[in-house]
């Protein structure tokens, strides 16, 4: 448990160095497939604000009071 915590802390502290030439898989389009900031993401955010109180997780909630629905 202690080793796992130390490993996690080391990883999150940036001790893992993946060199640019090792990042080919990270740059693949399937890795950037979710929430790519395009029109669909914006639309999805709007839908969640329309139907729930929270909006999209991780994004700032929109300002609407729901008045306009």
């Amino acid at each position, binding site marked *: 448990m202690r080793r796992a915590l130390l490993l996690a802390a080391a*990883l*999150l502290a*940036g001790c*893992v*160095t*993946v*060199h*640019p030439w*090792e*990042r*080919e*898989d*990270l*740059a*693949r*389009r*399937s*890795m*950037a*497939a*979710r*929430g*790519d*900031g*395009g*029109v*669909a993401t*914006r*639309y999805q955010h709007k*839908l*969640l604000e329309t*139907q*729930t*109180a*929270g*909006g*999209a*997780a*991780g*994004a*700032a*909630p929109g*300002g*609407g*009071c*729901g*008045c*306009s*629905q």
Partner: protein
Amino acid sequence: MRRALLLAIVGAGRAAAAADPDAEARSFYYTDNDGLQVVTVAGRADVPVGGGALSLETMIDAVDKQAIDATSGASITTGELTKERYELAAGYAADVGGVARLRALARASHEPDYLSFSGELGGEVALAERNATLAGFIGYGHDALDPTSHAPEDTVAWPATHQRVVGGLSFSQILGPRLVAEAGAAATWQWGALSSPYRRAILLRGSGVLEHPVPDAERHPDTRGRGTAYAGASWYAGGGLALHARLGGYADTWGVAALVPEATVAFEIGERGLLVLGYQYDRQGRASFYQQTYQGAPERQTGDRRLGALDAHLGWLEIDWPISPSVTLLALFQESYFGYHGVGRGVEAHIASLGIQLK
């Protein structure tokens, strides 16, 4: 934001991406069993300007709402409501010093009874030999509402406004040649007229067999603090397959709290095609003052079912299909179910979208 973060940390760099024009046009059709239909046409274009990228985005909604409102029963709307909503956004992003990127965004939207303006400044910096990225943003928004009708007993002086400040931070870290983790948080503080002039709380008057419902003006608090946070990871499994998992959370000063886990599977088809399957679950608790019906004369009351407890399931399928070296067809199908606790019927929503991307 996520794509920008990923591009930054893998070293591809948004500057390289911004050097080529990129445009997207999409249409969406939304329909649900609550009588709401929305046709949306949207477009976005990124154009290289002065060493950075100018981004323009527009979205036009045509809303058609039948007077069903079977789930809340609190609407006073009679007959059919139709209206259009126009949104326009413009932004500019530029690299600074090779490891940082700054951006500014302004957005405005207009409806016959609603006007909204917002602005945002943000940036991101690559750290630890681009193995990590720290990003942040701040913003301000101003909304003005001039309702076509409101309850005579409403204590809000219409037309009215509300304002908000927003801010957030996110962090992304490469954990291996195929693994990236990310986390972030954002917050909003709103103040002003936060009730809707169109919704009604339901008061129960009388007693016993003489008890009857009476619609009354909504009375929300005039401030609201809201926050979201998330943590997630993306893993490239090989063979063109990537898995994404994320847990999001939401809480506000009205007592609403939610957990939102999400999983996405993305599979590359050929050299440029992509198939994405996603699922999101949303479990939300109710606002402290939310009740379906009220007795007496409460200080706070609402007719907004979204402030009640709910469970939501969203599932979607996205396909990106290249038809030429510079043109990709985009398709999206989504099925959603929003179950509002204590309300007889949930909302089943269906979305279909078609679009085109030019690079």
